[in-house]
Each structure stands twice: as C-alpha cells, then as structure tokens.
C-alpha cells in the first residue's frame, strides 16, 4: 500500500525512503516497473521551476515541464527538439525535466541530447550536500536533481527512430561535444564502442546496430 509523504524541504525529502513524485507521468504510469508499494514523496511544490540565463549557460530547474521548455525563448533548439520527442501535449504539460532524467528510461527523450551537450546536473544527496555531476556520472546515483545547466552554444544533432510517434524508440542518439545513445532494451550508453544491442519489441539487435552506425555517420562523427 502506497503512502503519501509530505515534506517541508528538499533536504527532508532526500532523507526519506520512497520515490520522488513530481509530474507523476512516470511514477503513476502503468507498466513503468516502479515499485507499486513504495511510498511517494511529494516534491513538486519544492522544485525549482525557473529557466534562467547565466552567461552562455542556461539553467533549467528540475521542476520545469516539457511544455515550459518549449515555450521558453532561451532554451536551445536542440533541447526543444528532444522535448518534442515526447509526443503527447498532455504529457508534456505534466512531465518534468528532472523526472524524465531521473527515470533513466532506455528510450529517454532528453538524456542523449543533454549528455551530448555536456549538461551538468546539480543534485542533492542524501546527506544534504549539493553536488555537480555530468549526465554519465548521474547514472545509478538516484540523487534528487535540482537543476540542469546547459551551454547554449553547444551544437547537438539528435536522431530518434520509433515505429509510431508514441512508440518507445528503438534508438535515440545525440551527438555534440559528446555522444550518447538510448537503446531500447539495453539502456543508456555514452560511447559507440560500449553499445550493446538486444532484440525486443522495438526492433532486432541488428536493426538497432545498423541505425546506431547510420546516425553516427549522419552526424559527421565518422
């Protein structure tokens, strides 16, 4: 039986046992594999929901929704392109940036582009300390994301191949300073050489392998 845990601060939230509830589109969605019995910690009211500029950097609060991203004048186009991979307007109105990154989906909309752009995550750890991490460093960290920092001048090209607009993508790949791949069934990868392909509903391993090579080539990386 799930319980709702209310907290007064994010520091209090990270000390609790449970899942962080922000937009709810992952935690409350059917078949996401999250623990249906885990308590939910309501963090949405406490999250940073602003998008601001600092020099060439754009800092996006983790409570910003996909729709907020799209309506912002200062969010780089490569991030907006990635946000539009989430195809439903209703979902974009609800889903938060932090939630999408934290869920670490193998068909992640945002992670490949953010990683390719060398985005930095400001996270709050269980001990109450803030830490600045790269996307790759965040893997399996489970710390609470406070904000995402991007460089507006980054140049990122991204690719996504899914059967329909709403299907889980077989592959989402992005190329900038870094490269990053979300491979359905396999996970998130930060180099071409580390890619592992498995066959699943989204396509065969050889299909995904072909697309990964194709996209890398199309990006001009090889």
């Amino acid at each position, binding site marked *: 039986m799930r319980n709702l845990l209310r907290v007064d601060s994010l520091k209090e939230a990270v000390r609790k046992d449970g899942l962080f509830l922000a937009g709810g589109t992952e935690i409350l969605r*059917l078949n996401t594999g999250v623990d249906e019995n885990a308590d939910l910690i309501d963090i949405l009211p406490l999250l940073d929901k602003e998008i601001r500029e600092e020099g060439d950097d754009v800092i996006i609060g983790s409570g910003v929704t996909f729709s907020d991203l799209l309506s912002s004048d200062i969010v780089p186009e490569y991030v907006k392109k990635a946000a539009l991979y989430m195809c439903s307007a209703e979902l974009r109105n609800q889903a938060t940036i932090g939630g999408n990154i934290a869920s670490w989906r193998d068909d992640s909309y945002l992670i490949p582009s953010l990683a390719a752009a060398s985005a930095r995550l400001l996270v709050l750890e269980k001990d109450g300390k803030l830490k600045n991490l790269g996307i790759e460093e965040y893997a399996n960290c489970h710390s609470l994301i406070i904000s995402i920092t991007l460089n507006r001048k980054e140049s990122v090209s991204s690719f996504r191949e899914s059967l*329909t607009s709403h299907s889980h993508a077989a592959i989402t790949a992005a190329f900038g300073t870094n490269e990053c791949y979300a491979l359905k069934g396999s996970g998130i990868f930060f180099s071409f050489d580390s890619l592992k392909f498995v066959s699943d509903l989204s396509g065969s391993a050889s299909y995904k392998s072909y697309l990964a090579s194709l996209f890398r080539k199309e990006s001009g990386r090889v």
Partner: protein
Amino acid sequence: MVINVKINGKNVRLESEALKDLRSVLYAAGYNSVRDSDDREGFTGSDTIIFNSRLMYSNFIPFFRADGAEIYTAESLLKNRKINDVQQAMVDAGIVQSAYNSPAAALILTFLLEKNPDATRTDVREALSGLFVRDAGYEHYYLAVRLVQEKRRYGEYKSIVSPSFRDNLTYVGKPTGKIDGEALVSGERVFVEDKVLPGYSVLRVLRSPYAHAYIKSIDTSEAEALEGVDTVITCFNCPDVYYMQAGQGNPEPSPHDRRLLNRKVRHVGDRVAAVVADNDEIAEKALSLIKVEYEPLDAVFTVEEAMAEGAPLVHNGIVEYRSGAPEDLDEYNKNANPLDGKVIYQFPLHGDIRKNIAAGAHGGIGDIEKGFAEADAIVDSTYQTSQVQCTPLEPHVCYTRLENGRLVIHASTQVPYHVRRIVSWVCQIPEHKIHVIKERVGGGYGSKQDILVEDLAGYATWITGKSVYYRNSREEEFWANSTRHPMRVRVKMGGKKDGTITAIYMDVRANTGPYGNHCLTVPMNASSKTLPIFAVENMYYDLLTYYTNIPPTGAYQGYGAPKGYFGIISAMGELAMKLGIDPLLMAKKNIVHSGYMLEILKGLGEGREGTVVPVGSCGLEEALDKGASMMDWGKKEVSEDPDWAIGKGFAMIQQGSGLPGLDHSNAQVKLVADGTFLVLSGGADIGTGLDTISAKCCAEIMKCPLEDVSVVSGDTDSCLFDTGAYASSGTYFSGNASLNATKDLKKKVIKEASLQMNEDEADLELEYPGKVVSKKSGKELSYKDLIHTALAGDGRGAIVGTGCFVTPNFAVPYGAHFAQVAVNKKTGKVKVLKFYALQDAGTPINPELALCQMYGAVQKSIGHTLYENMVLDKSGKCINGNFTDYGAPMIEEAPEDFKAVLIDVNDQYGPFGAKSISEIATNGAAPAIAMAIADAVGVWVRSWPITPEKILKEMGKI
C-alpha cells in the same frame, strides 16, 4: 483526505484517498465525461481535463494535488444544457461517432480556440497529439475547428461539411448531424458504466498462465471463505452447456466448442475461474487464494505449427453435429479425450479437429490450370497478416442485474439479440426472462459482435441474484478479446502481356486461435469479397482455418477482406511489374461492371450454397478513374531530399451490405400522442449513425421535421428482432426495416385519415410539416389531431407501422484507394504522404458520417499495415498488451493530404439507394501502401506490419 477545489467555476469539497487518481474521483463525483480508456497508460486522452490552465491527463494527477486547484471538465462546456459552438461543430463535422472521448476532444479544442482563435492545422494536430481516435479518424477534427472559426468570424459556416445527394429528398443524403450527437459530445450518462447503481458486486476472472493445459483441480475453498466473496465459478460447477461466443445468425457457421469455463485452457488469458465479490480488492484477494493444478501441454501458435504432423491438438474432444453428421462419426470420436470437451458443429464446416482444422472450404470457376497455361507470366507469392486488436476506447464491459425476476443486461454490444440467445443458453432460461439493453457503444469495430463478457456476467447474476459489474482491463482486452485472424494468403496469378488476368488461385490459411469464432466466415471473406471484383474466368480457392493457442480471434471491421485484398492486389501489382505494364491498366482491364454474373459466389455462401447474382450498382471504374486523376497516376514524383523515395499505389475494393439470405431486421414506428414519432429499431447503432438513418427514413416518408422523430434501438424488450450490426448490415438491413415500417405506418395514417376526413385514400397525401392533405378538397388534418382522435374514447386505436427486411439481393459497395508514400532509403521509415479513398456507398444517407467512417477505417488499416501487431512470447503470452507497445496510430500517423470521396451511385435495393460504407474502407490501405513502397524502393514486403526494419531487410541493408 478532504480537499477544496474549484471545478467548472464552482467550489467543491471532495473526499478520497490522497493517492487516488483524480480521474476516478471526478467520475464518481458526477463529472462523467472524464473517462478512462488506458488504465493509466497516458495514451488515449479520454481522461483529459484542464488543470490549473493546462490540459492534463487526470489519471496522472493524484487526488491530493487537486487541493486548491482550478479544474475544468467537458461538463463546463454546457450552458443551460446547450452544447457550445465547438461541440456543435464536432457534431456537424461528423466526428462524434462512438464518442467515448468526444467530450474530452471538445474540451481540448475549446481550450485551443480560447488560447488561439486562429489555430492552424499544425496547432490542431499539436492539440490533439495526446488523444487517440479510433472511429472517425482525425481529418474532420481539422474541419470542425475551421467551422468554429468561420462561424465566429462570419456568423455561418463557409466550408462545405460534406457533399449532399438527392436533391429530391429533404434529409437523406444531407449532412444533418447525428440525432444522438448532442448527448454524446456533451458527456451524457449513456455508456454501460454510467448505468451502474450503488450496491453492485464486481466480477473478476482468474486467467490461465498457460497457453495449453488441462486443469487437474481447482481449490476455491479459501477464496469462498473470504468475507465479501459471493461465489466462485469454475469449470467444475458451471453449466455443461456448449456454445459459441461469436454473435452470428443461428445456427452459427462456427462450432460450439466452449463452455463458460473449460477443463482445458487454450490460451494465455483463458478463463480459469470467476469471482463475484463485494469490491475489487476482495475479488483480487480471492483470485490470489484460488489454487489451480494444471497439466501443461505443448502448444501451437502458428498455422504452420498447427498443420505439422503430430502437432498438439487444441481440441481433441468429442465431435457432434446438429445436422449433417458424417457416417463415420463414431469412428472419428473413438480416441477423443473427454477432458477436451466437445466441438459441436451446427452443420458441416469441413473441419477436422484431429488435424487442428476448424473449418474449410474449396471451390472455384473455370479451368484454373488452363488459365495458368495461357498466361505470359505468373506470380506465386505468400502474404502474411498479423494479429491485430480492435482497441475500442471503451473496453468490453457489462452490467447485469435482476428486475422482477428477469435478468437485465446493460451491454456494449453490436448484437443484443444474439446476447439474449446465448445468455439464455448459458443460464438455461427462456429468452423472455432476459432483457438486453444495448447502451451507447464506445467503439466496437467487430469485437463487440462477440459475446465475450455478457455470458459470464449474466450467469453470475442469475445464480447469485447480485447486480454484477464487469469491465476488461486494457491488458485483458489484448489477452482475451477477439482480434483479427492472422492469415497466410498465397496468391498465384497469371496474366497476359496485354494485361488480361487468366487465372487466380488463392490458398488461405487462417489462424482462429483457441476457439472457432467466425472460423469459416472470416477466411471465406478473404475470397468472397475479393475474387468477385475480378472478371476473370478461371479462379479457385482453398480455405482452411486452424485452431492454435494464440489469444482469441473473431470479427474485426472488414472481416477477412483486408487480408484477402492485401494478398490479391499485391499479387496483381507484382504481376503487372513482371509483365512491365501499369497495374492500374491491368486492374481496369479485369474488373467487373454492372450486370456481370458473379458465378464465383456459388461456393462462397457461409457454409451454405451461395447465390449467383449479377453485379448491381457499381461505381468501381469511376472510383479508379477519379482516384488516378487526383493522384496524378503515372507521374513519378521525386523528393527534394535525396534520402527519401516517393511511390504510389492503389487498390480496388469491395465489401457487402449485410448477408442476403441470412440477415433479418425488424422495426416499428409509432405515431405518438402529440403527432410526433418514435422509431423502435432492432438495429444496433454502435456510433455509426444507424439511429439517424432510421430517423431520416421516418422523417423523409412522413414528411415531418427530423426533430419530431426519436429512436430507441437495440433494446430487446422494446424492439423487434434484428440480427445485429455486423457484416456491414446496418444501413441496408436495419435501415430498410425502418423504411418499411415507416411505409407501413404511412399506409395506416392515410387509412385513418380517410376515415376521419371522409375522403378517399387515393386522394390523400402527406405534406410537410406533418399533416395529411386532400388533393381533392384541400382539407388538412395534422398528425396531432389525427392521432388524438384515433386515441380518443371512441377511437380506432394506436397507429403503429411494422416493417421487416430480408432479401436475396446484394447491394455491394465498391471503391478504390490510392496512396502516395515516401520511404527513407537509409532508415526504412515510411510516411504516408497522401491517401485518397474513393467509395461508392450508393446514396450516403449520412454523408458527413460516411466520410468520417472512411477516414477512421483507413486510419485503422494504415495502423495494421505499418505499425500494429500483437506479439506473443514463447509461452504464448501477449507481451505488448498496451497501446504504446502495440503501436496504435495517432494523429501524427495520419496522412497529411487525406481525402475521402463519395462516388455517386444509386443502388436498386438499398434504402433510398444506400449501400454500406465503413467496413470496405479497411480493405485498401495495406495493398495500396505495399504497392507504393514497392514503387518507391523496388521491394515488396509481404507481411504486416510493414516496418522500417522489414523494408531495410528487403533492400539488403541489414
């Protein structure tokens, strides 16, 4: 917890659990437009609300978060019970059909136009990006927005909603809007779930984890001992009655091969036990306490596996025949296993269950070998179609209760009278003890032709006396709902250099899954709806249907025809390519025209001898010519992006209008005490506008305002028998019954008027708006006065017209669908750039609804062609039982240039010259798109879905 929230402008106090989904709370609080179609998947948008000025899925909003929020639901759109201009435009545009999420759509579009009054097509697409529409397609949503914009700007619509037909008629052939459109778009309580009264029990089903197993024992003692559990039904205590869930005419051309629950489970998800309990939590707990001992068996999943020598037998029980039993039946049953139960054929279907064959048929005309010998080229290809799901937004649902000792069934069904019959069999009670009320149906598409839930719920109520509510989860829809039969269609076709087709051979192998629902008729359709479009002298077909252990199959809009067309038109395209001629020229050289005798039909009669008839009204050639012109056929298009190749394809198609010789419809029309009318139609309007057809028939003949007519339909107590809404029978059969009933009423009204007016009947005629007029004396008598006198103390009684419609005559719709696709040569991705559907529907009685049904059917068939596919794992479990994984197409998948065109042909037999419209529209997309892909990149993909990966493989890229 308690929250305070502002809903639709009013402060409201709500109480629920903190983490309860807001949708459920809103629905329970009376905001019943907020529905659920996806069990919190975030896909269909039926649960969309405006939450703090944003459109959101209420399934994802936990109740506590609504504290202090401002919410708008579709109920907010009504002012003094009047729908707003957006809702009106939706009704006018014809998109309010099965309408389960029409209120949500209205809310979304109203919100869009508030924020952006000049919303463009792109804006509309974006706004509807999270709304799944299965019935009417998306094209007229754009039109509805345009209509609103025009009305607001100019005070009237400028765009033409649809063409009009038959200038001599007032309502028929005119876009009037559905008579139930306002109720549906406003979110009235019209669906089964809305009828459930407090105090009901729930029914839940324990389903098999095995694809094939005997049930050795079931221990229900702990479950039954649980407080709040009323009863547990298993194969050991259910009636020993064999029946068939397919809702077909009695005797059915499907074997009775199941009981309510069986000793043998035959697919993952098959019924094992059913629990009636006070609530869901208790029922769930009870299911977990049931102990089942299985004896797992090897399973077969494909036709090839079922055909193999020594294959496990899905049914190996005793075979019986109600008629036509073979002489060696005792010998045949010698080694039957009683645990397998029985397979009872109503008449021979040429099945052989010891070889997993459920049914078969063979036949043809001419000399097939001679035909192939005369050919300059022959193609012989095999096409495979996949198992696809109807995915109605409203899942299978049923509410049953007792009233005055009778069983009342609130059903979402296409076949209320078959429901009554089959439930009476299962409960072993006479049919008069059962009252089926067909509520509004939130999507059927064939799947609600089968009695998949009413049998169990009805029986549960009958034995317990409890009111019972049952609703499939979305996952159960995939596990235990009927689906399209997967088929292997081999087509051998020979032709001459001049384009003459000399011979066609079809070898159809259908996979019926665990039970034989529609096992003869679906595969027969693959030939009976395809071969008769060809004026070819030599044609032969072999049809065999196999039992396997996949999830159940059954009827799906188009029936067997989409599979047959995928094979036969693709083969024609391949043959034309091989001969180096234009496939369109080949088509035109070989199609039938009015008057051509359809000898091929003789063997294609649904288990009986078929009737040879000539081709009647036929707009096929015009559809081909017009479509070719619209598509600029013959002109090779070149993409500006070198990565993309463009190709064109087409298919000529036909269907039927009901089943002449088998279907039967009845209706009554009553002149009500104030001179208005009530039509009682046996026909089941499943959102398609059949009730509007009945109303138009009445208003047209009785020369009264359409608003003076109400329709009650599909209620087995109030209305007379009708075989149901399937096989494209609604307009032709039920419509004709309403027309005949009205004609009968007209005679009776004239007769009564002649007595009241002292005039000869021959001098009397009806005049708008609702009166009898004497041509001789000029005297007038309003219907109101006429019926008042008839019902007075000295009157001659009520005036009721009764009509029946049966026929040996066919009213066949024809059409041609054209597709233009772009294929990415590097990724295999396909975009359907253009799709033009041209169809001859005779006189389209509701033209705007007809167009939307064409858009909806094409969108569905684009889905099964390119995306949709139920995937089973090695154990037979469907592993993509949700919308996202399954691949249901949304607005982004709709062609950007999408046109539906009605070819004007007047039919001899249909009501006011009408023929059917919607099923045929599922037949063209697969072959047209396959041909277009081949035209673009030179490869034929012969299996559904035609995925990018398959294209890349055919192109040799992977």
